[in-house]
């Protein structure tokens, strides 16, 4: 995982930052720059664009903690809220990324939920892909937003 993007690296929320409803440390949201759009020419471009954001966001969130808990932003609806897209869109992309071992899932307790819910995190393959995305776009904590 890229060090600049690790959890808790952002101190203050600002423009472009998603503020989770439970008051935990906000997680910045990354949007692929316009230069990426020139490469996303296929009909699958929207899904790819969302997949890039999901991978970066999950890398930003990190894996579930050793205490068994996980951040609510790592759930489907949490990702959808954070990324400003529908849960259906996130669900579709997540399912495809799971099928190719980019994303892994577990049932964990999250704050504000009575029952355990599915949370998502990057597999080692996914972390590798996230590193390359971040290197390609020069992502750091300061560049978010």
């Amino acid at each position, binding site marked *: 995982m890229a060090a600049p993007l690790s959890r808790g690296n952002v101190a203050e929320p600002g423009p472009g930052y998603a503020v989770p409803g439970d008051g935990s440390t906000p997680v910045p949201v990354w949007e692929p720059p316009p230069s990426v759009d020139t490469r996303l020419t296929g009909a*699958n471009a929207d899904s790819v664009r969302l997949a890039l954001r999901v991978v970066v966001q999950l890398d930003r969130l990190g894996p579930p903690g050793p205490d068994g808990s996980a951040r609510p932003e790592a759930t489907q609806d949490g990702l959808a809220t954070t990324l400003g897209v529908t849960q259906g869109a996130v669900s579709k992309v997540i399912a495809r990324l799971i099928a190719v071992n980019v994303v892994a899932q577990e049932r964990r307790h999250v704050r504000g939920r009575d029952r355990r819910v599915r949370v998502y995190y990057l597999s080692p393959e996914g972390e590798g892909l996230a590193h390359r995305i971040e290197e390609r776009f020069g992502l750091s904590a300061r560049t978010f937003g």
Partner: protein
Amino acid sequence: MSAKLTGRESLSRKVGPGVVLALAILILVASAGPSEHAKLVVRTTSNLGAGYNGVSCTGAGWNNSHLSVGIGSCQAAFGGQYEVNNSAIPNETNGYNFSFFVDWVGEFTPSGQLVRLASPLAPVSGRANSTVRGDEVNLSMSQVLNVTNASGEWTPNDTWAGRGPQWNVSNETIGTTVFGMGVQLNVSQFATANSTVNASSSVKFDVGLSGWPWAAQTDRLGFVLDSLGAWGSYFTFNATSSTLADNWNTTNRTFISVVFGGDARVTYPSGPGAVANVTEQAGLFAAGIPNREAVVLVAFGNVSGNYSQVAYDPWIVFSLIPTTLPSHPPGPSFSWDWPAVLIAATAVLLIGGITGQVVRQVRLRRQGEELVRGMRVAIGEEPGSTGRAR
């Protein structure tokens, strides 16, 4: 088995205001459309039962221009009206009307003494539903009933649930039970082009009970089915050991025959089920000429009590003559061998589910590979487009 003819009472007193209202709605709905065939107009209502003694009940109904049927949870009843001779409804001469009520369910000792009672007239809660699949109409309702202590003995002269207070019914609730009733009919068999009702017209209805708080394992459960044919219809009950026939039939009047199955399925909490013998006691009497009403106590015996569920499926057959058919007469396509159907359906679901999962995984993997390739294109690792649409 006994068959007695007793006195007459008014319709409203006998069936209660809820059912009268339900029937009125049925008649109103049935009279609304023009007389056309093969045109199914589904109109459901959520409040057919309308209520009884201040209890709000739910119901469901269905009708086309010839046939109207409904089920009301408060009265645990279903009724209907259908047309013969291609005449408009309502018409007391040509229109036919029927209604069936479950007045109460009870637990009996081996000697026939009532010990516990639950009345669908006062449900704790209830819901009803109607679905249409092709020519098949399914109406169902389910209600939660309070079970109380009671004492007494049922006789065919006991006409309806108003008899309840005479059984020393306790105000204390022993527990609750879930009572369900379902009606299935093939509407195409009712809408004949002209003249008479199709000889094979039949309605399958199911009665089910679960979660009964038993007083003793040696007891048995039973329910009272109250059937009323109004506005000129005639009917006969055909029990397993004898036939109760109303001889006041005239030419081309339609008999409504209730065909009682000889067994019912019971299920025990421990798992395996058993087949219970069905016994009936019936009374047949006029409920205001030319109406006829029959009250039948259907009991499930010959098995140990304490069963958690009982399911029973009698039939109602419409014909020009009193009809005696086997417990499962040929009729609508929903006359299935349920165990075989369940096994086959389970196998199909398993095979289909496994196959579906495999297909879904293959598709997801292909789509995932396209996504990853698209991401590599986006970050310059691969040339080309980001893939095709999904």
